[in-house]
C-alpha cells in the first residue's frame, strides 16, 4: 500500500510505499529537495508529526551547512535525492529510501558513513529566534520591494506578492538566491527608492532566507557529486607524454591557455576544446610520434647529392650544374649523415677526359682516408656509376671523390692527348645494409619491441605493440574492438608501401588524438540518473590519484593494482598515496597546486616600478618564486603540519635573497634552509613572492594584502566592491607621500558601505606594512614611520606581522577549511557544491586529529566520498 505524503516545505504531493514509514527521504520536487520523514500510514495510529519534525530539526541543527547562495540553489535542484522519487512515480518499488540499493557500492569505498550520532547542539543563531516569514520577511518585501516587484509592477518578471508563506518560497529557491545576493550587495532596493532598510533589517532577512532555504543536513544529503569529463590540461599533457613515451619535450608550450575556473586550470567544466586546440593536438601527435619512432629504422636509406650541391677543393661546375670538372688534382666532397654503424654502398657518377698513358683515377675517401680507387673510363662526358661497399661508423663523415693523377701536356701532338680531367656528377651513400637497430633511440626500442618477421605477421606484431601502448595511453585496458581499429590502421599504412615502423608511427599519432587519451573518461552505468551513485572503477581511481598527485598518468604499479581490483582497498590506497607523495613526481603539487593556490603564476607578471626598485631583477624574482616553492615542497616532503604554511619558522634562501631580506652569512647561488627563529619573518605571508604580488607597482597595498589573506588563507573572500569605487590617491610622480596609507584608508572607511569589508581587510594588510612592495623590511614609508599594529573586528590586537600571523594561525579550522577546499577542488577538477561541505568537514576533522599534517590532508581527500565516487548526470542547469 502507498502512503500519501505532502512535503511540508513545498506542499508537493506524492506517494511512497508503506514499508518506508518512519524512514527518511528527500522531497522529489526538483526545486525543493528537502528532507522529510515518511509518516505512518493513515489507518494506523495517528502519526506524531511534531515528533518527526522535531527529530529532523535537531539533526539539521547538528550538521548543518550554509548552502552558498545561488550556486547552492541551482544545485539543489539536481539533488532530487534518494529513491523515494522513483516510488512516487510508480517506478521500481524495490528501491529503498535509505540508499540501501547502493550499499554494496558504499561498503566497497570503505567510507565511514555518517553515523547520525552527531553531537546535539543548541541552535546557534538565536538572533533569528523570533524571525519568521510573517513577522519579518513579508513586511520587508512589502515595504522595500513591492513598488517595483509587486502586484502593480513586475519588473524583470519578478513579483514578491505571490509568496504567501514560508513554504511557498521553496519553489523559487533560485530567485531567492538572487534576492540574497542583491540584498548583501546593497544592489536592491535601488538608491532612489524612498524607503531604505536598515542594515539590521536587511541582515535579519538575509540570514533567515539563507538558513531557511539553503541549510542542508549532512545526514540527509548523500551526494558524491560528479565531475565533468576532463581534458588533459597543458601540464598534464606534457607530463603524460613524458611518462608514456619517455621523451622529454614540451609540446604543450604552444597550446592555447587552459581557462581557469574556481582558481585552477584543471576544471573539467572549463576545459574546452576549440578547433585551434584540436589542430595543435594533431600536429603535436605527429611531431611526437615522429620523434619517438624512426619510420625508416630498418630501411637502408639512400642519400643522393647532385653536382650542384657538392663541394670541391678545386675545379669548376658546369653543364647547368650537372657536373663538376676537376682539371687538376683535387676532390669533390660532401658531409653525409651515416645514421648507424653498418655497411654502406658509396657511389659516384663520374666521367673523364683521357690523356697520357693512364686512365683517370678516382679515389673514394672517407674523412680523408682512401677507401678505393677506380679507373674512370671514357673520353666522352658520358657518366658511369662507380661504387664500393664499406663499413662506416654512425655519425657525420666526409665522403670525397678525389682526382689523383692529373696529366697536362699542352704541347702533345694529339690535341686530345693533352689534358686528363675528372668529371663528377653526384655522390651518394646507401645504407646501412644490416639495419640500424643498435642505434635506435631507447624510446623507439621500448615501444617497438617486436617486428614482423618470417614468424610474425604485421598484424601480430602490431597487436602486441599497440595492446601495450594503447592500454597505457588510455590508462585502462584497450578493448578488442579499439585495438582492431588501430591494427587496421597499421596494415593500411603498410599497404601503401610504407614501413611497419611508419605504421606504428601513425597508430601512435592516432592514439594521441583519441578522445580516450585526451579526456579522462569515467563511466557510469546510468549516466543520466543523478541518483545512481557508485564508486569509480579501479583504473579510473588510478588516474584520479595520479593526476591529483603527479599531474600525469598512472605508473605501472598503480595500473597493476587497478588490474587486480585492489586499489580501492583502504590499506592499499593509503600505501599507494604515501608512496606517490614520496615520489619525485609529486613535485607537480608544487608546480600546479601551490602555484595556483598562492597565485605564484601571477607573481611571474609582477612588475614593481623599475625606477623605485631597480634591485628587483628577473633573477631576484626567480629566487623569490623558488623560495616559496621550496617552502611548500618542504612542508610536503617532510610531512609537516599544514599550519607551517603560516607559522613555519624556516625558509630557503640564496645569497641574493638573503641580502634582500637582511639575513647575513649566506653565500652563493645555492638555496639552503635557514631558521627564522627570532627573526621578523615567518611562513609564506612574509615571503617576497607573496608580498610583491599583493603590492601595487609603486607602493604597498594593505587592501590587496588583506584581501589575499581573506581569499587564500581564511577562505572568506570579500565580496566585490560596487562599481566605480576609486583607487587611493597616489602622490604625483616625483612627490613624496605626505599622508600615510593608513590614514588614507581610514578616511575611506568612514563610508559605512566600504567599512564592512575594509575593516578586516585593511587591518590584516596593515600588519605587513613593514614590508615594502618588493618584500624588504622597512621602518619608514617615505618619511612616515610605519605603524604595523592593528585590531581585528574580533578584538584581537597585534603590533607586528609575526603577531598577526600567530593570531591567524589560531584560526586553525578556518585555515584548514580554506586549504582543504582549495585542495579538494584541485583534486576533483570541479567546483565544490553545497553537499561537498560534508566531505570538507570530515577532512578538517581528520586534520585536527593528526596535527594538521600534509599527508593527512592528502589522505583524507583521497578517502573522501567525492574522490572515490561519482554519480549520473541530470544535465546542465538551465
Amino acid at each position, binding site marked *: 500500500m502507498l502512503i500519501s505524503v505532502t512535503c511540508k516545505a513545498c506542499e508537493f504531493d506524492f506517494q511512497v510505499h508503506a514499508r518506508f514509514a518512519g524512514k527518511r527521504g528527500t522531497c522529489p520536487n526538483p526545486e525543493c529537495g528537502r528532507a522529510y520523514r515518511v509518516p505512518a500510514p493513515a489507518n494506523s495510529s495517528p502519526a506524531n508529526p511534531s515528533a518527526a519534525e522535531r527529530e529532523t530539526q535537531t539533526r539539521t541543527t547538528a550538521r548543518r551547512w550554509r548552502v552558498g547562495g545561488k*550556486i547552492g540553489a541551482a544545485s539543489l535542484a539536481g539533488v532530487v535525492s534518494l529513491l523515494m522519487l522513483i516510488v512516487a512515480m510508480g517506478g521500481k518499488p524495490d528501491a529503498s529510501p535509505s540508499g540501501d540499493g547502493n550499499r554494496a557500492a558504499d561498503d566497497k569505498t570503505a567510507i565511514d558513513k555518517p553515523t547520525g550520532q552527531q553531537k546535539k547542539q543548541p541552535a546557534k543563531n538565536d538572533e533569528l529566534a523570533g524571525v519568521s516569514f510573517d513577522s519579518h520577511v513579508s513586511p520587508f518585501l512589502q515595504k522595500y520591494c513591492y513598488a517595483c516587484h509587486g502586484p502593480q509592477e513586475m519588473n*524583470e518578471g519578478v513579483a514578491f506578492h505571490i509568496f504567501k508563506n514560508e513554504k511557498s518560497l521553496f519553489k523559487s529557491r533560485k530567485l531567492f538566491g538572487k534576492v540574497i*545576493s*542583491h540584498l548583501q550587495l546593497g*544592489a536592491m532596493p535601488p538608491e532612489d527608492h524612498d524607503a531604505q532598510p536598515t542594515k539590521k533589517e536587511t541582515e535579519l532577512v538575509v540570514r533567515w532566507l539563507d538558513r531557511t532555504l539553503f541549510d542542508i543536513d549532512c545526514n540527509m544529503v548523500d551526494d558524491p557529486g*560528479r565531475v*565533468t*569529463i576532463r*581534458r588533459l590540461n597543458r601540464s598534464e599533457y606534457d607530463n603524460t607524454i613524458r611518462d608514456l613515451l619517455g621523451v622529454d619535450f614540451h609540446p604543450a608550450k604552444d597550446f*592555447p*591557455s587552459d*581557462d*581557469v*575556473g*574556481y*582558481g585552477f*586550470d584543471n576544471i*573539467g*567544466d*572549463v*576545459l*574546452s*576544446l*576549440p*578547433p*585551434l*586546440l*584540436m589542430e595543435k593536438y*594533431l600536429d603535436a601527435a*605527429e611531431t611526437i610520434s615522429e620523434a619517438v619512432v624512426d619510420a625508416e629504422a630498418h630501411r637502408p636509406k639512400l642519400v643522393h647529392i647532385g653536382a650542384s650541391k657538392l663541394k670541391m677543393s678545386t675545379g669548376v661546375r658546369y653543364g647547368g650544374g650537372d657536373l663538376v670538372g676537376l682539371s687538376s688534382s683535387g676532390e669533390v666532397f660532401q658531409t653525409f649523415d651515416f645514421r648507424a654503424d653498418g655497411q654502406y654502398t658509396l657511389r659516384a657518377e663520374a666521367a673523364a677526359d683521357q690523356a697520357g698513358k693512364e686512365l683517370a683515377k678516382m679515389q673514394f675517401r672517407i674523412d680523408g682516408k682512401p677507401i678505393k680507387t677506380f679507373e674512370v673510363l671514357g673520353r666522352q662526358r658520358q657518366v658511369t656509376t662507380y661504387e664500393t661497399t664499406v663499413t662506416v661508423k654512425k655519425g657525420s663523415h666526409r665522403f670525397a671523390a678525389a682526382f689523383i693523377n692529373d696529366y697536362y701536356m699542352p704541347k702533345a701532338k694529339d690535341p686530345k692527348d693533352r689534358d686528363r680531367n675528372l668529371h663528377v656528377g653526384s655522390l651518394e651513400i646507401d645504407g646501412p645494409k644490416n639495419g640500424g637497430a643498435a642505434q635506435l633511440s631507447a624510446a623507439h626500442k621500448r615501444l617497438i619491441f617486436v617486428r614482423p618477421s618470417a614468424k610474425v605477421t604485421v598484424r601480430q606484431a602490431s597487436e602486441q605493440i599497440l595492446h601495450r601502448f594503447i592500454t597505457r595511453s588510455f590508462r585502462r585496458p584497450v578493448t578488442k574492438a579499439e585495438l582492431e*581499429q588501430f591494427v587496421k*590502421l597499421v596494415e*593500411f599504412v603498410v599497404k601503401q608501401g610504407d614501413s611497419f615502423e611508419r605504421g606504428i608511427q*601513425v597508430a601512435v*599519432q*592516432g592514439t594521441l*588524438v*583519441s*578522445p*580516450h587519451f*585526451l*579526456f579522462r*573518461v569515467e563511466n*557510469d552505468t546510468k*549516466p*543520466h540518473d543523478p541518483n545512481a551513485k557508485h564508486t569509480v572503477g579501479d583504473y579510473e581511481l588510478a588516474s584520479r590519484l595520479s593526476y591529483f598527485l603527479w599531474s600525469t598518468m598512472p605508473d605501472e604499479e598503480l595500473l597493476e593494482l587497478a588490474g587486480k581490483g585492489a586499489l580501492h582497498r583502504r590499506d592499499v590506497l593509503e600505501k599507494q598515496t604515501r608512496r606517490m607523495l614520496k615520489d619525485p613526481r609529486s613535485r607537480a603539487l608544487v608546480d600546479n597546486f601551490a*602555484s*595556483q593556490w598562492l597565485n605564484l*603564476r601571477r607573481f611571474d607578471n609582477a612588475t614593481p616600478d623599475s625606477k623605485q626598485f631597480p634591485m628587483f631583477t628577473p633573477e631576484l624574482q626567480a629566487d623569490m618564486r623558488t623560495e616559496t616553492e621550496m617552502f611548500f615542497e618542504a612542508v610536503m616532503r617532510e610531512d609537516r603540519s599544514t599550519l607551517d604554511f603560516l607559522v613555519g619558522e624556516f625558509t630557503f634562501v640564496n645569497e641574493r635573497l638573503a641580502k634582500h631580506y637582511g639575513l647575513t652569512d649566506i653565500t652563493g647561488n645555492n638555496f639552503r634552509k635557514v631558521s627564522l627563529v627570532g627573526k621578523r619573518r615567518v611562513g609564506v605571508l612574509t615571503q617576497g613572492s607573496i608580498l610583491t604580488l599583493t603590492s601595487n*607597482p609603486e607602493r604597498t597595498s594593505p587592501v590587496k594584502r588583506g584581501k589575499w589573506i581573506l581569499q587564500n588563507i581564511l577562505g572568506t573572500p570579500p565580496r*566585490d566592491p560596487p*562599481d*566605480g569605487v*576609486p583607487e587611493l590617491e597616489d602622490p604625483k*610622480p616625483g612627490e613624496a607621500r605626505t599622508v600615510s596609507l593608513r590614514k588614507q584608508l581610514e578616511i575611506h572607511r568612514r563610508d559605512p558601505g566600504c567599512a564592512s569589508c575594509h575593516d578586516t581587510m585593511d587591518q590584516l594588510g596593515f600588519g605587513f606594512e613593514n614590508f615594502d612592495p618588493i618584500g624588504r623590511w622597512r621602518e619608514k614609508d617615505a618619511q612616515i614611520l610605519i605603524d604595523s599594529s592593528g585590531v581585528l573586528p574580533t578584538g584581537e590586537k597585534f603590533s607586528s606581522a609575526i603577531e598577526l600571523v600567530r593570531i591567524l594561525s589560531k584560526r586553525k579550522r578556518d585555515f584548514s577549511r580554506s586549504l582543504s577546499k582549495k585542495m579538494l577542488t584541485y583534486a576533483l577538477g*570541479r*567546483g565544490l557544491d553545497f553537499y561537498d561541505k560534508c566531505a570538507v568537514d570530515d577532512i578538517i576533522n581528520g586534520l585536527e586529529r593528526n596535527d594538521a599534517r600534509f599527508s593527512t590532508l592528502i589522505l583524507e581527500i583521497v578517502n573522501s566520498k567525492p574522490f572515490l565516487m561519482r554519480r549520473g*548526470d541530470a*544535465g*546542465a542547469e538551465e
Partner: protein
Amino acid sequence: MSRSKLQRRTFLKGLGTTMALPLLEGMRSESAFAAPSSAVAPTRMALIFFPNGAIMPQWKPTGESGPLELSPTLKPLERHKQDMLVFSGLTQHHARANGDGPGDHARNASAFLTGSQPFKTSGANIRVGVSVDQAAAAVVGKQTRFSSLELGIVRGRNAGGCDSGYSCAYSSNISWKSASTPMAKEINPKLVFERLFGSPDDKQAARGRTRRNLYRKSILDLVSADASRLRDKLGKTDRQKVEEYFSSVRELELRIEQAATKSVKPPKDFVAPSGTPRDYKQHVRLMYDLMALSFLTDSTRITTFMLGNAGSNRNYQQIGVSGGHHSMSHHRNDEKKMADIQKIDQYQVEQLGYFLDKLKAIKEAEGTLLDHSMVLFGSAIADGNKHSHHDLPIVLAGGGGGTLKMGRHLKFEENTPLNNLFLGMCHRVGATSLKTLGDSTGVLKGIEA
C-alpha cells in the same frame, strides 16, 4: 656612427618582420597564392576588441547624423575618413549586470560579439551565446581554408579568478563557437603564420604531404568513430564536451580536404615572423599584417582580434603613460588620468590606421582590399570609469564590397542593439540566412549605400 643612426638601424632591424608587408602591394598578380577565383572579390569581416572602454567625449563625434567630423581620438584616421562610419547610440545590453552584480569587464568581452548575457559562474555551466563571427563562419566558413581566425595579444590569465565570479573564459575570449565553447585565440605571430602557410623549415615534410594528409584523414575517421561510441555512453554535460571534440575534428577534416585542392603560399617577399615581438606595437602591427595576409590570400574571410583581455592592466610606458590601463580607467574625472587614457585610446586608433593602410594598399578586383572588407573596431564598454554599456565606441571601416555608404557619423536611438549592426555585417559576408543574432531586433538601417 652617430648614436641616432645606430638607433635607427636597430629599430629597422627589430622591425624586420613588420616591415615586410608593404611589399605585398605589388605581389598580387605574380604570386602563387590562391586568389579568390571569381572576378568579384568576396567581402571580409574583421572584428577588433579593445579593453576598458574609452574617454568618450574625446572619442565621439559630436552632433547628429551627417558627414563625418573626426573627434580628437579618431584623428589618426583622417586619411581614411571617407572609408569609415562612426556610430552613436549603439548598446550591448547584455554587458550590463541585469541582476548579476559586478563583473562588467568579463561581460564586456563575452557579450561584445554575442549579444547574450553570460551566465555568471566560476566554472560549471559556462554559457553565453554564439558570437557573430562564428554565426557567420558557420554559414560561409566552408568557402575558405579557415572558417575563421581568432587572434590576440595575451594569453588568458592562468591563476586565480578573473572578474567578480566570472570564469576567465569570459574575459579572455570574444569569439564563441557555441554557447559553451570559446574559440581560443592564437597570440604568437609565428604560429599564426605557420597555421596559415605551414612551417617554412618544413621542406622535407612538404614532400610527403599528400601521404601525410591521407594518414591524418584515416586517423580522424578512426577517432571520430571512437568519439561517437563514447558519446553514447556519457551523461549530458560530458556529451557537450565530446561534441566540442567532434566539431573540432570535423573542422580539421574539412581543412585537410581543402588543403588538397587549394595550395596557398604566402607572397614570396613576406618574411615569416620568427616569434612574438616583445614590443606591444610591433606585436599588434604584426597581427594586423597577418590579418591582412589571411584576407589577401583568401585563407579566411572572418577574423577576430583582442587587443587585450577584458580589464587588461597593461602599462603603456612607450607612450609616456605609467600606470595600469584598467586601474587608470577608473579615473573619477581626474584630468591627468583621463588625458593618459585618451592617449592609450588614440594609440590604439593609430594602430588601426596602420591596418587600414595595409588593406587599402592592396589592389584587388576593381578596388582595394579595404573596399572589400568591413573592419569593426570597438568595445562593449563605453565609459571605463562608470562601466556604461550604451552609446558604445564603434567604428566600422571599409566598403563592405560597395554596400556601405561611408564617411558618415550615424546616430541611432538610445539602446539600439549593437547586434543589429552585426546582423547586417553577417549578411554582407554572405551569411544571408541569419535572421537574428543574440539580442538583435533587426538589421541596422541607414548604413547602406
